[in-house]
């Protein structure tokens, strides 16, 4: 039973890395600073390193959100199922929604289904998840906008191509920092959940830190997920929101990295997705004449608002199913349903493929670029 939960958690971590490669690397890929394949590889390695850097966020998830006394393994498994399904759905539509909120929503939903609203530590939820979720994109946009403005101001005497070249080099550095920051925040969330499961199982004492094997497994899962790469989300972030030049890319990445690292060390489990999106919008605002596609931004914001409750509902449903069947068999039934749904979503995605070859095709309003060949039927 415990093994099943840990495996589900690692699957979530994989989808997390997969979904969030875009946050770190979208702008570098869009400006051509790094070739797409190299970008995802570098990002994977740095996510691995980042996972070891700070454990503050894991502590928040493990003991700051729900009452660990009422949490059972079934609750954790159902919560994870909710998070995974929401992650895959948003990936299918190329929406960079928050993996963190998917996970937190799923766990809270299944906790409520199991033992009512009183088991949720609402204060922790609001002060460490919801308020940072609202503030962080705004702060990131502010930082990125001022950064962009300064970069263009300082480098105004450089020729366009020299400037592009110089900042592309800088972008490699800033993109690496974002990947590192992503590891400090997102890999932590799965560690937190596995720790929660271990506490629920009685393996660990209440309030313990994540054991080392948990850290290593999570770091590995997230970096493999990152390497596989969520090309659909990369495309929306890199091409859909704003057309990005390399100074903007560097400003956006530096802003994201700074905000995520700072928040991680305060134990705020913020969404790296929200921060990266805020930064990219900020660079659009900070440069004269740049155009922000507010309709794309609006679609994302809608998905953000729905992420917590939707993942919560799926989590609650998964708990209902597992509880109805009962015991270990119930969790296995849950996982079979989960696997079937994932396969279905994967199958659907084959129709409109986005990969490292067409990730930078011109934005025409859709996630999947038009066929390069003159396709007969639309």
């Amino acid at each position, binding site marked *: 039973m415990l093994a099943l939960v840990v495996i589900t958690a690692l699957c979530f971590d994989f989808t997390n890395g997969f979904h969030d490669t875009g946050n770190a690397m979208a702008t570098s890929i869009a400006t051509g600073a790094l070739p797409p394949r190299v970008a995802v590889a570098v990002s994977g390695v740095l996510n691995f390193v980042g996972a070891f850097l700070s454990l503050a966020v894991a502590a928040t998830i493990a003991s700051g959100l729900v009452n660990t006394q009422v949490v059972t393994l079934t609750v954790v498994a159902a919560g994870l199922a909710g998070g995974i399904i929401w992650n895959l759905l948003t990936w299918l539509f190329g929406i960079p929604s928050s993996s963190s909120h998917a996970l937190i929503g799923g766990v809270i939903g299944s906790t409520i289904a199991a033992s009512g609203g009183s088991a949720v530590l609402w204060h922790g939820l609001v002060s460490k998840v919801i308020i940072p979720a609202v503030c962080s994109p705004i702060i990131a946009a502010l930082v990125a906008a001022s950064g962009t403005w300064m970069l263009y101001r300082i480098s105004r005497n450089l020729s366009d191509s020299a400037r592009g070249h110089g900042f592309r080099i800088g972008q490699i550095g800033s993109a690496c920092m974002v990947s590192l920051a992503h590891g400090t925040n997102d890999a932590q969330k799965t560690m937190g959940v596995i720790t929660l499961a271990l506490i629920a199982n009685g393996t660990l004492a209440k309030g313990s830190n994540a054991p080392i094997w948990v850290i290593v497994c999570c770091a590995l899962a997230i970096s493999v997920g990152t390497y596989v790469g969520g090309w659909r989300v990369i495309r929306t972030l890199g091409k859909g929101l704003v057309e990005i030049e390399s100074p903007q890319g560097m400003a956006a990445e530096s802003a994201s990295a700074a905000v995520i690292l700072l928040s991680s060390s*305060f134990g705020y489990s913020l969404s790296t997705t929200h921060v990266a999106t805020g930064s990219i919008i900020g660079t659009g605002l900070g440069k004269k004449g740049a155009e922000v596609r507010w309709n794309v931004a609006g679609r994302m914001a809608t998905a953000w608002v729905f992420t917590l409750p939707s993942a919560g509902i799926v989590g609650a449903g998964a708990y209902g199913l597992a509880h109805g069947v009962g015991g270990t068999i119930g969790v296995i039934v849950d996982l079979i349903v989960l696997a079937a749904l994932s396969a279905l979503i994967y199958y659907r995605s084959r129709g409109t493929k986005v990969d490292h070859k067409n990730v930078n095709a011109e934005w025409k309003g859709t996630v999947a670029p038009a066929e390069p060949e003159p396709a007969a039927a639309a």
Partner: protein
Amino acid sequence: MSWINLSALWKIVVFGLIAGAGLPALFAVGITSLARGPRAARTAGADSDVLVGGSVVGAAIAVLCFLIVLAAIGWGIYEVYQIGHPATHK
């Protein structure tokens, strides 16, 4: 316990601006001064892709800027590591 931690919030804004906007600005100063010098003037024009201009002072300022940026990043990572592992604090 309050709902919103204002002291953490302003720290994130201020340090975010210093690290997230200040460091790339310093990098920009670096590449701008690196490109200064006689070679840049000769090949001036919209298409010039000269990164190293040839001015010694410019190059020195650039190296200084890049070093400050690297040092700041290293110090930042060290601080995050210290805060993130309270158990290992002496």
